[in-house]
């Protein structure tokens, strides 16, 4: 049954995405660890972590696209789930520092020591175990999303109202995590990690390992998401996006559908955050900033909303652009990026992948999925 579910989502596009990911999973380790450093085919560890970071963002974008592209819930607070997953992982990593912190306190992280904390707060307990932390990576964002969604969907909060309260949620979390009193390191966040599962976090092997884990998580999430989309559940979700009330009159309890997709999406975002933190080496409240969530929305839009592959493509391309431009055009890059966003909206109304869809639609087997001109789907959306 499970295989059938996964196979269902496997169309040509999915095949392409998975092939690319598989290629990455093979090529990247070889090019970094096997190919000698002088060779033009060598990939530096720096690039591996960078790629890993892009893929984490891609996973976040995928999660967002699931709810926005297919259910019409425009979350302007998805980075909150990402950050919570990241914090859960960060807490584990902090605990792994052990007595190697500057104050040499075996239990308390440095920031607690210098703020005179005497003992570990209760919510830090258990995070010295990887399994517990890994569970929390799913549970914390999942439970928050479930609770939030349960109330919001039941109250029939939709459209911009939903978007804005998701933004309020992440903004409130931002302010809360900024507070040193919260016990998460305030603005400085969690950083200076040493090892993960006993491996030196900066060792090339570990970095490649983390990268592979990210590829695997992204591939799995992609398969889950496209499986859902291809199922009848997916059709119900799209119908909800378009005309929710009509779906209700057909007897579907739309709230539980939305809650399902929403919670699943939050968990995916949490996983993305958890993989992100060890690769970039820091988690701090700015991940909760509303702008981070908006950026994630932008990645999806650039890639093509409602096309899972587009979300991935958009996240990788925009972030690659950001990395590249901030180095190459440090004083002009905002023009480049801003201009890119404007041009994409004007000339690629369905995102980069819309271009692909347009091209393939001409081919005889194109079944013409998606709205005729993007109009109907968007009018009600958000």
């Amino acid at each position, binding site marked *: *049954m499970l295989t*059938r*579910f996964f196979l269902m989502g496997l169309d040509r596009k999915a095949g392409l995405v998975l092939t690319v990911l598989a290629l990455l999973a093979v090529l990247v380790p070889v090019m970094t660890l096997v190919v000698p450093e002088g060779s033009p085919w060598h990939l530096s560890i720096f690039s591996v972590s960078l790629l890993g970071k892009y893929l984490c963002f891609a996973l976040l974008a995928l999660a967002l696209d699931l709810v926005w592209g297919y259910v019409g819930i425009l979350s302007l607070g998805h980075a909150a789930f990402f950050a919570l997953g990241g914090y859960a992982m960060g807490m584990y990593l902090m605990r792994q520092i052990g007595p190697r912190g500057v104050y040499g306190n075996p239990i308390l992280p440095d920031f607690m020591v210098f703020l005179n904390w005497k003992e570990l707060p209760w919510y830090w307990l258990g995070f010295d175990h990887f399994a517990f932390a890994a569970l929390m990576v799913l549970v914390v964002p999942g439970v928050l999303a479930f609770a939030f969604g349960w109330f919001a969907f039941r109250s029939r909060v939709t459209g911009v109202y939903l978007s804005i309260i998701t933004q309020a949620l992440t903004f409130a979390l931002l302010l809360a995590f900024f507070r040193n009193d919260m016990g998460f390191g305030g603005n400085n966040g969690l950083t200076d990690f040493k090892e993960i599962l006993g491996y030196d976090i900066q060792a090339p092997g570990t970095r490649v390992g983390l990268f592979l884990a990210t590829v695997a998580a992204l591939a799995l999430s992609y398969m889950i998401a496209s499986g*859902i989309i291809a*199922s*009848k*559940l997916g*059709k*119900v979700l*799209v*119908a909800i996006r*378009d*005309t929710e*009330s*009509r*779906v*209700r*009159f*057909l*007897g*579907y*309890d*739309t709230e*539980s*559908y939305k809650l*399902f997709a929403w919670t699943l999406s939050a968990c995916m975002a949490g996983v993305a955050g958890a993989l992100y933190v060890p690769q970039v080496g820091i988690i701090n409240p700015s991940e909760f900033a509303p702008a981070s969530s908006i950026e994630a929305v932008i990645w999806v839009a650039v890639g093509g909303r409602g096309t899972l592959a587009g979300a991935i493509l958009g996240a990788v391309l925009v972030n690659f652009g950001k990395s590249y431009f901030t180095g190459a055009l440090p004083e002009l890059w905002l023009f480049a990026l801003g201009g890119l966003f404007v041009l994409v909206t004007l000339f690629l109304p369905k995102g980069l992948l819309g271009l692909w869809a347009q091209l393939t639609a001409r081919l005889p087997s194109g*079944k*013409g999925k*998606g*709205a*005729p001109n993007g109009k*109907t*789907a968007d009018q009600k959306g958000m």
Partner: protein
Amino acid sequence: MSAEDTLLYLDGVSVSFDGFRALNNLSLTMMPGEMRAIIGPNGAGKTTMMDVITGKTRPDHGTILFEGETDLTKLREAGIANLGIGRKFQRPTVFEPHTVWDNLELALKAPRRPLNTLTYAIGRDDRARIEEILDITRLSPKRERLAGSLSHGEKQWLEIGMLLAQDPKLLLVDEPVAGMTDAETEQTARLLCDIAGKHSVIVVEHDMSFVRALGVKVTVLAEGSVLAEGSLDSVSANQQVIDVYLGR
């Protein structure tokens, strides 16, 4: 009359919007298998009555019972639909980004929980049923078309098809033949007559030839309550009905 034997039982239902009474102490009963035509002036409250039955609008007062026991005013839309009450809207409302086929598949009677739909695989029976409905609605050639690209009348047909696919106990049909040619009107009337018997149907229409073709009991609503009830001929002869509705 006791509520128990009825399929639908409305008693003293009132709805007002900002002081305007759209339904005024409306009472109406439907027996299982019955088909009823409802006519009445524009703004009489016909659509509002359907809204109240299907949970779209909450009544200010009054009782609405389904199958003599279920209090519909306590339920939400999906719950009501799952009891077996289906509806066609006055303005055709279909899932525009879905194909005609998918619209029907979504409407098709089947378990409605998320897990059910996640694991749903279309079977031979379901396929056959959809084909059948496509034939009835003459949308077969357009099965792969997106519903959003259908013309007005085609959407009307698609929505009727969706209602059939749902296979509800009670069908609420709001102006099914608006925008249809005379021939299609006749065909629709036949279709509804076929359905009646096994199902109960409430039809709202302004097309008198259509109502005549149905040949069922007619209820005339005006200003939110029942003005007259009886055969079409008897209500057409009613002077009040002529004054407010039929005209000269």
